[in-house]
């Protein structure tokens, strides 16, 4: 079973906390034993209370003193045990989370691009949380529960065998009843969650597009649909909630029967003079209560544990994913001049779907290269390869005649300044988003960069200027403003080479022209790769690479390519002729 390997991995993680674990287990044993011992001592004390004038208070005091010691030790053992369990569970999860995040920084893009970010987040956050919860519950309840059951049986046997048998035989009935109800209500819960899912999808759709709903005066219709689903949900919920809530009364009913059975057999054997004292009877009754409790809990804990093992497995899957190959000890790129060579490069994301085939391009230092072509022709893929977000399947890419697969990724990526169509901003101030945590940057430098990127004018109108805090993913900024901020980052400390992938697609054409001027200044002496749809961006390029189906089919300047009358001209006319 796959579960076993996950459990082994979990145990390996716990190993770091072995001393704590041992302490916790020993304390659990002690506290269970002491908890069970207490009713016996109290029972003995009660046995001394016989009839008026015959109570032996002399003999009772040491008993009560012992009881007090037992109580004190139980409480201390419980507290330290809880503390140890918390420590183990929370630290194991903390370690796992840190490890998972560390892994995140090293995972290849082939992993990241094929796994939804929501899925990865839920592994690191909620799966880890559920795992911690399960681990904690496992330690505190499962372990002590089992020990309590075993201990109780032993203690009861020591008092009276017959009554113990009665208890042991009847109690599993409550487990059986609980299981019966759970299996019956399972279908009802499934029905409930399916209707609930339907309702959530409907709510999600309507509220997300509430403005359209109102613009089309569609509120009455959507209210009607909502009511219909809501009524169905209420019906399903009532069934599920009610039938599942009969579990507790039913198991309690069984427990009460056990209690009555103990009282009956106990009282009868006390009468028969079988050596059972009243103190013994009171101890047995108290055990009957304690014995049934862990049974009810354990059935819940087992589901909880299964769930937590499943969660741990998902987390381990992430932690054990294959990382990018290490580049330790590789050369670093320094003082890059900007000569880029692409030689016979082939690449595909999926083995049997060829994308780039035998591509060769030479770019001289300082050249401006525009890449154009229809959607899906491989423009963005080429950029993924230049940045080494993906590795080529065959062929080589060189920078300054060094194979980029033989230099460190950091030094390669630091040589490029990159602005993508998909803007990324983090929750934080505007300034943080521009400097991205780089230190030793003065306000004047930030403002100069913002002016160059034409973002200064909108930033200064924000409530707190450069200190305005923006929410996750840019909060209230428009798409165009977000792009301006991303451009500002590059303007701050421009690296020797630039990659602009549709960097100005959401900026209006007039502002774009101004930014282009700034870019033009920036691009002087810098090799740059530009992916764009707009003519204005492309026309000025030294070389235009026209890509189609993963190949460069035409190459040249704007005027040359127009004159050649090939694919570029068709593309150009379909885009810009009106």
């Amino acid at each position: 079973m796959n579960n076993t390997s996950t459990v082994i991995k979990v145990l390996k993680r716990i190993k770091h906390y072995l001393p704590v674990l041992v302490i916790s287990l020993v304390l659990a044993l002690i506290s269970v034993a002491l908890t069970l011992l207490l009713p016996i001592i109290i029972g003995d004390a009660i046995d001394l209370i016989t009839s008026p004038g015959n109570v032996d208070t002399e003999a009772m005091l040491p008993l009560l003193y012992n009881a007090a010691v037992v109580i004190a030790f139980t409480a201390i053992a419980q507290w330290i045990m809880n503390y140890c369990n918390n420590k183990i569970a929370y630290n194991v999860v903390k370690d796992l989370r840190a490890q998972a995040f560390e892994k995140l920084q090293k995972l290849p893009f082939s992993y990241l691009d094929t796994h939804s970010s929501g899925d990865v987040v839920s592994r690191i956050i909620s799966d880890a949380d559920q795992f911690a919860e399960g681990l904690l519950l496992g330690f505190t309840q499962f372990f002590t529960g089992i020990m309590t059951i075993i201990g109780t049986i032993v203690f009861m046997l020591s008092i009276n065998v017959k009554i113990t048998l009665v208890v042991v035989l009847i109690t599993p009935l409550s487990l059986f009843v609980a299981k019966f109800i759970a299996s019956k209500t399972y279908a009802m819960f499934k029905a409930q969650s399916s209707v609930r899912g339907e309702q959530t999808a409907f709510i999600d759709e309507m509220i997300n597009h509430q403005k359209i709903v109102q613009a089309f005066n569609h509120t009455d219709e959507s209210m009607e649909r909502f009511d219909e689903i809501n009524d169905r949900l209420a019906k399903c919920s009532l069934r599920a909630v009610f039938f599942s809530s009969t579990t507790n009364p039913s198991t309690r009913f069984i427990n009460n029967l056990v209690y009555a059975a103990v009282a009956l057999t106990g009282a009868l054997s006390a009468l028969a003079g079988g050596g059972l004292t009243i103190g013994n009877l009171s101890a047995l009754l108290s055990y009957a209560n304690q014995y049934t409790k862990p049974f009810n809990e354990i059935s819940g804990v087992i589901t909880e544990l299964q769930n937590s093992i499943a969660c741990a497995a998902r987390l381990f899957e992430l932690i054990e994913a294959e990382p990018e190959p290490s580049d330790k000890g590789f050369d670093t790129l320094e003082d890059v001049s900007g000569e880029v060579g692409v030689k016979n490069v082939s690449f595909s994301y999926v083995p049997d779907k060829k994308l780039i085939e035998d591509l060769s391009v030479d770019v001289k230092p300082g050249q401006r290269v525009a890449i154009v072509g229809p959607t899906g022709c491989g423009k963005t893929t080429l950029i993924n390869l230049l940045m080494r977000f993906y590795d080529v399947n065959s062929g080589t890419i060189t920078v300054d005649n060094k194979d980029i697969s033989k230099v460190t990724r950091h030094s390669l990526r630091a040589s490029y300044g990159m602005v993508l169509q998909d803007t990324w901003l983090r929750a934080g101030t505007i300034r943080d988003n521009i400097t991205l945590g780089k230190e030793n940057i003065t306000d004047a430098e930030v403002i100069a960069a913002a002016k160059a990127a034409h973002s200064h004018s909108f930033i200064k109108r924000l409530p707190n200027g450069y200190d305005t805090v923006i929410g996750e993913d840019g909060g209230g900024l428009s798409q165009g403003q977000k792009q301006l901020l991303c451009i500002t980052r590059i303007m701050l400390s421009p690296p020797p080479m630039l990659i602009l992938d549709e960097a100005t697609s959401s900026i209006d054409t007039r502002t774009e022209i101004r930014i282009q001027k700034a870019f033009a200044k920036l691009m002087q002496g810098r090799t740059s790769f530009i992916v764009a749809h707009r003519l204005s961006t492309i026309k000025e390029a030294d070389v235009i690479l026209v890509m189609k189906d993963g190949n460069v089919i035409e190459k040249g300047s704007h005027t040359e390519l127009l004159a050649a009358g090939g694919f570029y001209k068709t593309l150009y006319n379909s885009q810009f002729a009106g």
Partner: protein
Amino acid sequence: MRKILKFLNGYIKEIIAAPLFKLIEAAFDLTVPLVIAAIINNGIKTGDKIYIYKMCAVLVLLAFLGLAFSITAQFFSAKAAVGVSSKLRRAVFEKIQDLSFSELDTVGTSTLITRITSDINQIQNGLNLTLRLLLRSPFIVFGAMIMAFTIDVQGALVFAVAIPILLIAVFAIMLKTMPLFKKVQAGLDRVTGITRENLTGVRVIRAFCLEKSESDKFKESNDLQNSIQQFAGKISALLNPVTYIIINVAVIVLVYTGALRVNLGELEQGDVVALYNYMAQILVELIKLASLIISITKAIACAGRVEAVLDLESSLEHTDDTSISSSKAKVEFENVSLRYKGAGADSLENISFKAMPGETIGIIGGTGSGKSSLVNLIPHFYDAAAGRVLVDGKDVKSIDPVLLRDKIGIVPQKAVLFKGTIRENMLWGNPDATDADIYKALEAAQAKDVVDSKDGGLDAEVEQHGRNFSGGQRQRLTIARALTKKPEILILDDSSSALDYATDAKLRSAVKSLPYHPTLFIVSQRTSSIMSADRIIVLDDGELCGIGTHEELLADCEVYREIHESQFGKEGENA
């Protein structure tokens, strides 16, 4: 809280019955130790077998009665909890239907969704638990105390001292941990935030070589979260040992004082056992009560969040000024300014223009210049901060929003279709439209081929958000949806950006030749889309910086000329 409590109204019967039945069951539980005491005192001491049988039969009877009463209680409480939450969900959804765009902007959709789903679920659980257990536990605790008094007043005094101490201990620990748990949750939010940010920004992070600093940042939050968690755990771990000590010390005192009193002949042995049993019951109930209180506080927090939504009021203004302007304009702006809620500056300033019936008005301007804001004022989605927006000569604030919006067809920037069939989507425009009407609209919107290309034509399935259609297809279908309405005013808010120039041109001429001649507003970034409009409004940073025809603006509006040249070159080499 008062608003939420009102929702309990229809379920008063259940809300009284559920705890009542639960209490009766608890009363049966409380009599069990009395029966045991009777068995010991009367049965075993006197050797009366028949009496023991009888009393054990009473125990079984009590168990059966307890089962019957508690299941009845569960039913009433489930009915009330499910019913109330269903009503609440409906009320929240209905409230959202009434909110104006300003509120929708400020509240945010994702939080509205969690409130109507998971928050209300929490309330349902909380209410269910409250009805079943909140009264039961204190009842058992105090009931046990009262029963103890009936057995022996002096012995019961131990209870009277122990129970308040217990309550103080339990509440002190809970009060201390509650804010800590909130902190734990907030710490988790931060860890989540960093993780999510890293995944969405992985290309930028790697391009800027920020892996190390991101890991450090994560480690810091992760460690902080861990230490708060440990601290909270340390304190909540006290709950069990502390209650254990208090109860069992009380037991020792009980047994000892009991022993002394039995010795004096004031009490019997069975009574001491009964008192001991009551103490044990109290321990069990207190542990239940503690976990119950945690769920209830959660539910109360959720109720607060739901109530916040119910408290929202649409901020749209309404005036009773029904005077009709003398101008014959279909749409007229009189010195209109707009400022969004919480914004530092006006988004539109002092805009005035007239659109006569059947005219085409183009609106152009840079990123964030206020183009969409302007057209959103026509259907009264937002209130003008100053000035008046008139439709058919009447201030939009004086027109019933339903009537106003019936006149207007709007095609938003983001092309959105709803789950269902194409026909269902088209019927949003006009529920009574025939297939012929729909096809006319589709033809004008250049979307007929989209429908024809799908299996099932109008009955073709549309997936959520219309994701089985391309951007251009979605845009044309949303235009068709607006056209099935046969609106008097049609607003295209940058809604042909994904169409190529030729299709865009065909679309415009088809709309122009519609028999009902809508007054047309076209918002666009492309001058080619609005060049042929009767009038073009040029916006720059929320101000109107030019209005006129294409030729007029080329001659005297600097901004317009720059926009045009940026798209077509200085000499219009490709125009």
